[in-house]
């Protein structure tokens, strides 16, 4: 069953290979800018915050980088499967026994290696630039430029809602997250019971709420906007209902809201524990 043929002579094979490479380069050259310009920018979370915009840029770069890879596989498989198809019902004929090609292996390893190192370096730069809106734990390493003057807001997760506290407003509690526009915000995320995850979808912010842990995330807001808040970590029975709206409002509206909310909060203030970065209730036992 082994065909002893040392079939197609090398030049033909070289031409086939050259054709694939050229077709790939042409297709990539056309597709990559199109993807980068038209697909990249519409990938969420959008430009509502500086951090969200950073993520959009990240996604834009990565989709652009992924395009040549997809093109390579599309061109390669389209050409290969069409050209090297065995005829139906024909005798089994063996192909040429190509077992290795040093050059292709080396080029492949170097190219994938460079891409990976670039992506890791790029991602690290984007992360350290402003924190990218992610939870960083109690000792943050990535800060937006203006973080010293940031507005501190605490997010407390519990089964099954988020509560927000504003230490600068006397530790006031609110059931809705309201943020002033064009402000640096320092979110302190913690939990009273199980692990939750605070996800402000349009803001590009996500930070897990762990009991007894102060998880810090930074976000720089822009224009006024209504956004969704969801719990993104399975937290029990009503996890699916742990969502709410939040608002970014103009600076003056924020002052108005704060005054009013503080007034509403005053009667219950004495029942609420003193503001702190973590709250540890008694150890949880069974709930059901």
């Amino acid at each position, binding site marked *: 069953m082994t065909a002893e043929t040392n079939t197609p002579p090398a030049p033909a094979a070289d031409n086939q290979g050259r054709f694939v490479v050229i077709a790939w380069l042409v297709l990539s050259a056309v597709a990559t800018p199109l993807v980068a310009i038209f697909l990249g920018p519409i*990938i*969420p*979370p959008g430009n509502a915050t500086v*951090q969200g915009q*950073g*993520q959009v840029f*990240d996604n834009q770069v990565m989709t652009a980088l*992924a395009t040549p*890879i*997809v093109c390579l*596989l599309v061109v390669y*498989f389209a050409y*290969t499967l069409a050209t*090297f198809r065995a005829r139906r019902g024909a005798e*089994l*004929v*063996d*192909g040429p*026994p*190509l*077992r*290795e*090609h040093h050059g292709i292996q080396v080029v492949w390893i170097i190219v*994938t290696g460079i891409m*990976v*190192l670039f*992506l*890791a370096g790029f*991602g*690290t730069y984007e*992360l*350290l630039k402003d924190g*990218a809106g*992610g*939870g960083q*734990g109690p*000792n943050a390493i990535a800060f937006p430029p203006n973080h010293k003057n940031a507005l501190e807001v605490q997010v407390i997760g519990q089964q099954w809602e988020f509560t927000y506290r504003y230490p600068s407003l006397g530790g006031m509690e609110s059931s809705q997250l309201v943020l002033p526009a064009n402000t640096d915000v320092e979110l302190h*995320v913690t939990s009273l019971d*199980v*692990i939750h*995850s605070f996800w402000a*979808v349009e803001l590009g912010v996500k*930070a*897990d709420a*762990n*009991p*007894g842990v102060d*998880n810090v995330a930074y976000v720089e807001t822009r224009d006024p906007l209504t956004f969704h808040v*969801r*719990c993104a*970590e*399975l*937290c*029990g029975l009503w*996890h*699916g209902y742990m969502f709410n709206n939040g608002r970014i409002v103009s600076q003056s509206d924020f002052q108005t809201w704060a005054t009013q909310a503080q007034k509403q909060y005053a009667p219950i203030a004495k029942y609420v524990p003193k503001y702190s970065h973590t709250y*540890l*209730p008694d150890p*949880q036992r*069974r709930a059901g």
Partner: protein
Amino acid sequence: MSSIAVATPPVWRRFVGFNMLTGIVLGVVGWYAGWYGGHGVVGPSIDYFGDVDYNEISVYLAYIGGVIGFLAGLGFLNYPIARLRGYPPSLREKETEGIGRYFSLCTDHKVVGIQYLWGVGLFFFIAGLNAMLIRFELLRPNHQVFPAGTYLTLVGLHGTMMMGIMTSGILGPFANYLVPLMIGARRMAFPRIESLTFWMLMAAGAVLETTIFFGGFPTGWTGYAPLANQANPGMDNYILFFALVGISMCLLGVNMLATIVTMRAPGLTWTRLPIFVWGVISTAILNVLAAPVLVAALGMAALDRTAQTNFYVTAAGGSSYLYQNLFWVFGHPEVYILALPGFGIVLELLPVFSRKPLWGYRLSVAGLLGVSLLSWFVWQHHLFVSGMNGDLRPFYMLSTELISIPTGFTFICGMMTIWRGHIRFTVPMLFCLAWFFNFLIGGLSGVFLSDTPSDVTTHGSFFSMAHFHYTIMGGLVFTFFAAIYYWVPKMFGYKLHEGMAKIHFWTMFVFFNSTFAPLFAIGFLGQPRRVVTYPSGLQFLNDWASVSAFLLGCSMLLFLWNLVYSLVFAKVPAEANPWGSKSIEFQLPSPVPVHNFDRIPVFSSDPYGYGEPARPLTIPAGAPAGRD
């Protein structure tokens, strides 16, 4: 041979003895013994439960008793006891009995492989049915069909069963069946342990399914700790299930490694091993090293729930991160336990269907082992936004992205193997080609998740859910079916219906993509995993995914019918070598005889010598005869 006629035993004799029936009976007995024994345990922490008629300890003892009874009934204690009483050692049990060997402790690796195929298949279809119910609930943005707790239990059962049972999805049926054949051995290194891994997995499956009698569990397949501590007793089923799966996985890995290292036939050097066997090696290493971490983590979870320890209770000095860390130290190698055998199958099948040697043998081995090694250094990417070790995130970003280099080896080796070949579009080949497409999407979406800034939005959303379904369903399940269509004729001796198989492939490929591709968008647009509600604006995409999922389910039913039709009704005998493969298992008759080889083969090359001067693959004469 003597001519004395052997009297056929009466039918009832077949049902008496150490077999599955006895196992189930003793399992029930053991369960109740443990249950009532558990009620005898008293103490201050038990009083806490007050008026309920169970405590967690009795649930654990019941299931441990049940599993021990089941295994004893199958006869796993007979041999140790016989040895203690001075009987001589033996390696074989029930290998020559009829159909009954499939329902008992049998040491024939081919029987175990077939047991695994049906057993794993059963749970695969149950878990798939759970997925259908999940998608049914998600047809509407509001929660409508199931109570919230039931929905979470369905999500948990689907995930846990797929991630637990399907770890053995390829190693169980195909490695057990094929590795001894491919390395020219007559058995596995530890034949009884081989059978034990299978029956333990089935016992585990039963433990998990019966969680519905204890209120289910709300944690999904990850079982995160502070939530697990407060959950129903159904949580105990999850813990025991995964612990049993962990033990089974670990033993399976040890057995595979021992077999491959010590039992290769003469001439089968490391560079002549079929690449599928290398896939098994790289997976088995992970099995052996990862599963104990899981068992330890679950042991602490069980202690938290019964003995009121506080390993995971932050307020009492424990840490909720401890469980997350331990779980993902196991959990990330675990996903490669699922994916790596698939790599092996793709690379094993491509040479056969393109009539060319495997291109870059050493590079593909390096790829498999590289993934296996690197998978240990990436687990904290599951904790990017958890608030733990913020300064380690760049490292985990780098290590996660590094994995795409060895994964790329598999791609380039597969791609170059079909270059200038004579490609035949058989059903197994179609599944392998689909693997490239699915795994490309899965891999590229993985790059988005590994990039920490981008991960902030996609973490824990439907995007990551779509990503791992592309890698696991697109990577594991597609190659699982490739393996079924490729090797089932060899295992059972019957052909599968090709027309139905092709329809199955095309519907599965189309509806798989149509189910999971929209989920990337859904995740980006703000739908977290495991929710029962979602923004009404996402209903169209969700409905699209649901309807596609139902059609995907229909495609699976077609496969099931093909299997039943071909193996039970049509029964068209398969040739010994339907694919023209040079691999050794196809040089044997179909189905393979009990002792595999009359004489142990001698290898002089790898099985990929297509287009090369014929070198004799096996030389039956002159080989050492009596290797058992």
